[in-house]
């Protein structure tokens, strides 16, 4: 049974491009102080950053919860957003529904969700159009050398 070592929740404000990414920086600093495997930290922070940007770009608000156990980092991201009508399509690299404003921020080129999946050991999306989306991602701590 995994032992929970740390649990932190963060609120993400939708449409606030100025603050977008601050949670990712905070989590990177938090994890870097814990002497974890650098590859796992890097993978985790990429997933967090992409998730945070997705919430900022598409949703009214969201929460990100980080749960550190002795063998993995779990990330739960829940938003109140438009939902994803076709998840398989959204997971394809290059597919994007981003606006020009999002692209001017350097995001919305159809790489976000695939990047999150690529950097996770387990990855699940639950979404309902008109309600929101939740993503569960786990990154194992000792499988990446």
């Amino acid at each position, binding site marked *: 049974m995994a032992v929970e070592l740390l649990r932190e929740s963060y609120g993400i404000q939708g449409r606030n491009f100025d603050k977008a990414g601050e949670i990712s920086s905070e989590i990177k600093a938090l994890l870097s102080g814990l002497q974890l495997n650098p590859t796992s930290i890097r993978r985790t922070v990429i997933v967090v950053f992409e998730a945070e940007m997705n919430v900022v770009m598409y949703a009214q608000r969201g929460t990100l919860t980080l749960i550190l156990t002795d063998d993995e980092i779990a990330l739960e991201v829940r938003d109140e957003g438009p939902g994803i009508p076709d998840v398989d399509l959204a997971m394809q690299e290059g597919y994007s529904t981003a606006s020009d404003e999002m692209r001017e*921020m350097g995001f919305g080129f159809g790489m976000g969700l695939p990047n999150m999946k690529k950097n996770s050991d387990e990855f699940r999306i639950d979404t309902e159009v008109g309600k929101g989306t939740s993503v569960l991602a786990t990154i194992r701590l000792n499988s990446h050398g």
Partner: protein
Amino acid sequence: MILREIKELLGCEVLVGNPDLEVDVTDVVASDGMSEILAFARSKELMITGLTNIQSIRTADIAGVCAVLYCRGKVPDKRVLDFARDKNIPVLATSMGMFEICGILYAKGLRGVS
């Protein structure tokens, strides 16, 4: 190739130079798409981009690149540069376009990551 040599070669202005520019660069990641940089950078690359907002430095920090080079004469605002300084990421800028920069660095033996 040492970052200082790249600075000379491309006629760069140094916007944030701390830590110093003696870092050795062998690989380059070049894009205006931040997710592309996050997808392909493994760490210690030189990141070349035309995007000058705060997300460019956040991406550089998360991707673990060794320095950021802004192309096409673009210069970020003070807040972005302060953030880079805080993260110890050297920042350079050149008037050259991305295609030209990449061509010159490729000819000098540097390689892209994919």
